[in-house]
């Protein structure tokens, strides 16, 4: 029993740390969830489909892509393709999460779904992902995203565009802050510069989503650098 407490206390502390880490952006996530709900409903996706999508896909950029392609009268295949390309990076994110998860395949599959850019980013610790932080952050983000979606599909346009308040700049600012904390050596700096340059160079050349997948090559470049 005492052992159990000793083991459990630090774990719940990391869970809470994950929740706290994403708290500053939770309001922005709710508002963007709402704007997805509004956009999706206007695009003729109805009320239930956008909410189901927020629970299952749980990836902002891909969901916005689907709603805007369908809303502008685009083909379903085009919407699916755009979204899958945008989410290809989650294959790499999933791989980096894999060593930190425990239990059987179903539990690992369920926990891996809480990995989204922001929860993955705040759960980085000593070069690996902290499972409890990932889950804590992921639960808050998924709750916020889905709550926002529900508010958007039912509440309609009373909410306004979160970009008017500059909330769209909060996400890259969060990633920048977390990136600064990652730059602890020559290799990590090379990886960051290479990743950023690859993404910037390829953005006009490739369909959305692929530049960020290609940017993971920056890690290989950094690994080749003699330290």
């Amino acid at each position: 029993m005492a052992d159990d407490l000793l083991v459990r206390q630090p774990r719940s502390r990391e869970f809470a740390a994950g929740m706290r880490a994403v708290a500053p952006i939770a309001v922005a996530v709710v508002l963007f969830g709402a704007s997805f709900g509004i956009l999706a409903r206007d695009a003729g996706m109805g009320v239930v489909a956008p909410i189901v999508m927020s629970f299952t896909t749980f990836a902002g950029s891909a969901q916005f892509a689907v709603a805007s392609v369908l809303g502008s009268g685009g083909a379903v295949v085009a919407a699916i393709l755009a979204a899958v390309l945008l989410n290809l990076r989650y294959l790499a994110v999933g791989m980096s999460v894999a060593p930190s998860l425990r239990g059987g395949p179903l539990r690992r599959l369920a926990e891996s779904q809480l990995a989204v850019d922001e929860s993955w980013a705040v759960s980085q610790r000593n070069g690996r992902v902290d499972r409890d932080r990932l889950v804590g952050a992921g639960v808050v983000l998924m709750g916020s995203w889905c709550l926002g979606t529900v508010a958007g599909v039912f509440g309609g346009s009373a909410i306004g565009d979160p970009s008017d308040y500059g909330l769209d700049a909060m996400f890259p600012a969060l990633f920048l802050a977390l990136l600064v904390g990652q730059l602890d050596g020559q290799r990590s700096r090379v990886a960051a510069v290479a990743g950023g340059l690859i993404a910037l160079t390829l953005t006009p050349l490739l369909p959305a989503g692929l530049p960020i997948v290609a940017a993971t090559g920056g890690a290989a470049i950094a690994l080749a650098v003699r330290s």
Partner: protein
Amino acid sequence: MIGAWIAVVVVGAATIALKGAGPVVFAGRPLPRPVVALMPLLAPCLLAALVVGQTVGDGRAVVVDARLAGVAAAAVALVLRAPLLVVLGAAAGVAAVARVLGAA
């Protein structure tokens, strides 16, 4: 409507598979050695790409708009070692002001 549901189901299934592939395939066994070596460098690399994409990316275009002003403000706040809330607040505040002043 049926098209929307097809998109929701297919994209949902694909995303669940993409996120879960690594954790399910490598349940209880270590990742291949070359992948392990890359993993600590994946975070700085992907984070930098996310910063670039969400600051100046707009679909298949690179655009300079209010987001860049916001992120620049966040960078200044980071250099000044401001707390995270101040960094995020600076980003949102400056981007909002830049938008009022006419930046797209």
